[in-house]
């Protein structure tokens, strides 16, 4: 059930990239997609249990897998920095293309 929602998020983002005309909207759609991917990693990590994996004397509870969480932390940082870089590029482009419609930008910038 949760998995279906996660995949729905990924697909929403993907179709947003295709269907939205505005460049900023496209970038936000990409963010939605990457949120979906991050959620999927968290979901996979919690397959075996929900407890934080900390060494203790207590009973051996069902721990969640720390590896995907650690990995996706890198993914989050990379995704966020890419978005920053892209938005700076968009700011530069917006000076001459105030509407930021991709087909217009593409038309004037393809030889």
């Amino acid at each position, binding site marked *: 059930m949760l998995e279906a929602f996660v995949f729905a998020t*990924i697909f929403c983002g*993907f179709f947003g*990239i*295709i269907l939205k005309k505005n*460049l900023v909207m*496209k*970038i936000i759609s*990409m963010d939605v*997609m*990457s949120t979906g*991917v991050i959620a*999927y*990693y968290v979901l*996979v990590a919690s*397959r075996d249990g929900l407890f934080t994996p900390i060494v203790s004397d207590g009973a051996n509870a069902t721990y969640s897998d720390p*590896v*995907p969480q650690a*990995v*996706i932390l*890198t*993914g989050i940082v*990379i*995704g966020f*920095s*890419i978005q920053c*870089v*892209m938005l700076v*590029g*968009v700011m*530069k*482009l917006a000076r*001459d*293309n105030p509407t930021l419609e*991709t*087909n217009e*930008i*593409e038309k*004037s*910038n*393809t*030889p």
Partner: protein
Amino acid sequence: MNTLTMPSAGIAIAWIALPFFLGFTIYLLPKLDRILALCMAFVSAGYALQLFVTQSPLTLQLLDNFGVTLIVDQLSGYFILTNALVTTAVILYCWRTDKTAFFYTQVVILHGSINAAFACADFISLYVALEVSGIAAFLLIAYPRTNRSIWVALRYLFISNTAMLFYLVGAVLAYQTNHSFSFASLRGAPPEALALIFLGLLVKGGIFVSGLWLPLTHSESETPVSAMLSGVVVKAGVYPLVRCALMVDELDPLIRIFGVGTALLGVFYAVFEKDTKRMLAFHTISQLGFILAAPAVGGFYALTHGLVKSVLFLIAGALPSRNFKELQHRPINTTVWIALVIASFSISGFPLLSGFGAKVLTTKNLLPWQAIAMNVAALGTAISFAKFIFLPHKADGEEAVKPGFWPAAILLLAGLFVANVVYYEAYSLANIVKPLATIGLGWLAYLLIFKRSVLKLPRVVEQFEHLIGGMSLMLLLLFWMVLA
């Protein structure tokens, strides 16, 4: 990791970390930018040569089975050497231009991230390396700060990042089955995991239909940046595919099919292209197909292609025009023409140059069903480079040579001659006759048919939204291929 491999392990890790350290040092000491960047390229070249000398593959497993896996052997040695030589040539080319320290920082970081991609053998380190190379390439493409360069860079980053998101989903699916991110965990992974991971790598590596973002990006960048993109950056996506094909036997046929398809698609566009840089870019796609068509010997092919394609891009930047029609009426300088002809001969597989050895070696390792298609692709290569060879030239012809052009071109061309030693067994009569016949046929076809062709292929598929949409189709195709 036992104590015996400790020193070489330390060296490997230091070599991977060095470019990032140097990159930021360059920014702190802008006066030393070119020298530091050049030093880094030399260090990589030395490291690659050391890999050839010791001949013992180094496998590192940092932490546990979920940790970082590194593999460096001869195959990665070829790719690393390509990276080192192309970077050296690009730095020499830019030596006397007014490029700022920022440019060299990005070059060194790009160099380092690609080195890392050539050394790692797990999906997450590869993801990080590819994303860093994507950002560095974005900054290099956008370096002129014109609207067009920013748009081209933005388009590149957007497409590669979307592909990498698919790749991440695939990586976690593969992790779920084997609890490991290493390439070997692809064995027994569900088909959807394979399809998603491969989609990411195909887009990043510019393979088959997913590689159609490549012509615009490579042709609209500045000359040294195109040389670097075409020479090494796309290979960061191709290398993992080759590595996977070698590690997991079940994937070998799939990679070979993509190799053949890519070689034919790229050459088909290249033959009809009227613009020098776009022709070279389409031809890069086709050559990547050659690397994948015979994964076991892909390293050597990647080395020759990296050298020849970067020198061709540098030369294309020194020609007075980008349009072939216009170049027919404007004779170019003979010295530039000679360099152009050497490079074109190498890529068509003419003996004495290393392109010959690479082509023979690849042909030897093809499966029977691939042979015809790859010969057609080789013929297409000869046809497309006849466009360069038959350009008019005269001693005082036009040129637009930058001061750093000759050192860079001479380094790369010398590399083409020296690389012959890798496979000198290729020089037998039967092997020599075949490429000559291919080249002859190609020239004949060019002079009779293609010189006059006015067919212009539509560029609809290169539009941004079609490229993104193409990914979903490619995903379906991959899924069916993996299931079959």
